[in-house]
C-alpha cells in the first residue's frame, strides 16, 4: 500500500490511541461494574450492611465482622512489620557493605515474589500447628496467625520502598553533616531519616494496601466465621474473617442478594486501596518538592 508518510504516521498514532483507549476503557468498566453490582445490596439492606449480624438463612448480611477482621489483622500485622521493615531498610541502605547489599536486595525481592497461596499453605502446615500446642489454643486458626502471615508478606514492600527512599536522600546533606563532626548514626538519625520520611510513609502505605488486599494467605489461617471474637482483642480465638476471605469463601455458592453483598465488600476494599494508592503518590511527590532547594 503506497501511503504518504504523513498518513502512515497518523494511522499509527491512532492505532496506539485506540489501544490506549481500550485499556483505559477496561479499567473504567471494571470500576463501573463493581459499583453497579453492589447497588442492589444497598437498596435492599441499606445501613444494615454494616451491622454485625450475618445469617444467610435469615437474609441478614452485616459486614461488620469482616470489616473488623480486616482492620484488626492489618493493624497487628503493621505493628510488627513497620518497625522491623524500617529498621531493616536502614540497615540495607546505610550499613550493609556493597557486597552484602547485592545479596540481600534480591533476597528481599524474592520474598515479595512468593505467591500468596504458598504463604497460605505454609501458614496452614507450619504456623497453625505451631501455635496450637504452644499457646494452648483450641486450634491454631486465629487472627494471630493471620497477622503474622500478613506481617511477613508486607515486609518486603516496606523494606524495598523505604530503602529506595533512604538511598534517594542527596549525598550533599550526609556529607555536610559528617563534615561538622557527626557520626554516621547521628547523621542517619537527624538528617537522612527526616529527609526520607515521605518515601518511608509511602512505603508503609503500600504495605498496608498489600495487607488489606491479601486473600488466600489469610483465608487459610483464619477461623473463617463471621463473628467478632469476645473479647474483641482476643487474637487467639478460632474465629473471624476478613473482607477478602469472606468474598473468596462465599463466592461460589452465594444467592443473588448475597453476591451483591460480596460486591459491596469488594467495593469497600477497592475504595480503601484506591485512597491508599493516591496517598502514596501524593507522599512521593512531596519528596521531589522538598529537595528542590538542594
Amino acid at each position, binding site marked *: 500500500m503506497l501511503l504518504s508518510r504523513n498518513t502512515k504516521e497518523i494511522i499509527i498514532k491512532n492505532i496506539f490511541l485506540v489501544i490506549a483507549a481500550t485499556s483505559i476503557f477496561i479499567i473504567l468498566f471494571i470500576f463501573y461494574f463493581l459499583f453497579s453490582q453492589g447497588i442492589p445490596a444497598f437498596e435492599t439492606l441499606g445501613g444494615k450492611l454494616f451491622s454485625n449480624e450475618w445469617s444467610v438463612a435469615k437474609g441478614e448480611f452485616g459486614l461488620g465482622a469482616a470489616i473488623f477482621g480486616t482492620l484488626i489483622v492489618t493493624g497487628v500485622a503493621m505493628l510488627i512489620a513497620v518497625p522491623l521493615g524500617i529498621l531493616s531498610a536502614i540497615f540495607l541502605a546505610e550499613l550493609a557493605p*556493597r557486597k552484602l547489599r547485592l545479596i540481600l536486595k534480591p533476597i528481599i525481592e524474592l520474598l515479595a515474589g512468593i505467591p500468596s497461596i504458598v504463604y497460605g499453605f505454609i501458614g496452614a502446615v507450619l504456623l497453625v500447628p505451631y501455635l496450637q500446642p504452644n499457646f494452648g489454643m483450641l486450634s491454631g486458626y486465629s487472627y494471630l496467625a493471620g497477622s503474622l502471615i500478613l506481617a511477613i508478606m508486607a515486609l518486603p514492600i516496606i523494606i524495598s520502598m523505604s530503602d529506595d527512599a533512604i538511598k534517594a536522600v*542527596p549525598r*550533599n*546533606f*550526609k*556529607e*555536610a*553533616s*559528617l*563534615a*561538622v*563532626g*557527626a*557520626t554516621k548514626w*547521628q547523621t542517619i538519625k*537527624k*538528617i537522612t531519616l527526616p*529527609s526520607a520520611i515521605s518515601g518511608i510513609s509511602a512505603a508503609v502505605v503500600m504495605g498496608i494496601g498489600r495487607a488489606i488486599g491479601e486473600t488466600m494467605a489469610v483465608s487459610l489461617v483464619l477461623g473463617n466465621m463471621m463473628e467478632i471474637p469476645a473479647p474483641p482483642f482476643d487474637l487467639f480465638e478460632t474465629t473471624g474473617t476478613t473482607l477478602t476471605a469472606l468474598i473468596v469463601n462465599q463466592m461460589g455458592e452465594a444467592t443473588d442478594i448475597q453476591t451483591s453483598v460480596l460486591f459491596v465488600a469488594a467495593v469497600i476494599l477497592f475504595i480503601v486501596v484506591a485512597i491508599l494508592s493516591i496517598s502514596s503518590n501524593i507522599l512521593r511527590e512531596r519528596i521531589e518538592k*522538598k*529537595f*528542590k*532547594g*538542594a
Partner: protein
Amino acid sequence: MSKKQKDKMNIEKINLWYNKSQALYDITMPITTNKVTAIIGPSGCGKSTLLRCLNRMNDIIPLCRVEGKILLDNKNIYEKKTDIVEVRKKVGMVFQKPNPFPKSIYENIAYGCRIAGIKNKNKLDKIVEKSLKEAFLWEEVKDRLKESAMGLSGGQQQRLCIARALAINPEIILMDEPCSALDPIATAKIEDLIRELIKNYTVVIVTHNMQQAARVSDYTAYMYLGKLIEFDKTKQIFENPKEESTENYITGRFG
C-alpha cells in the same frame, strides 16, 4: 618559632587510589597556621581529592585507599586509632555547591553544636550569632533565623554553610571551590570573608580560578595529573614560577 611549629598541618607523601587507579602521587606540602593556602590546577588534577584527605572525607567513598601521613598539630590523622569525629571537628569543610540542611537558618548552625552535646539555649544563641557575624551574614538574616535556609540566595546559602562550619570552632577551614556556583558579587563577599577569617583560623582553598588564588591566598600549590608540581608563596608562583608546567598554566596556555 621553628618552621615546623608554624605549620598547622603537614602533608607527607600522600598517595591515593580509587580502586586500582592512582589519583595522587607522593604529595608533600605544609599548611601554614593563620594563612590561606590555595591549591590550583586544571580539572581532574586531584585538588579536591587532596583537600578531602585533610578531613578524611574520602573515607566515605568505597574502594578509596590512602597511604602516607597527614599531621595535624604534629599528630598523624591517618593512624589507625584516630578519632575521625574529633578530626572533623577541628577541620571544617565548605563544599562547592552550598548544601544547607532542609531546616531553619538557626537550626542549620546549631546542628553541629547539638551533635557535640551543647543543649543550653543561651549558649546556642550566642554561638549562632557569633558564627553568622564571622560569616558576614548576621545583618541579612538576624530577623529571620527561624525561616527555612532553603529560601536564601546562593551566595547567602554558601555563607550559611561557612557559618555552620565555624560554629563548632574548628582550627582549619577547608573550602572546595566555594565560589564556583556563585555570581561575582557574592564571590567578592566571600573572598573578603576569607581574608578576615585567617585572623583566627587557617584556610585551605581549592579553586580553578587563578585570579582568585592570586587575590586571596598567601601560599599556592600547583597540581597537575595527581602530582604536586610546585609549592611556594603566592607572589612567587604568579610572578616567578620555577616549573615550566606552572608557567604554562598560569599564563593560560592550557587548562
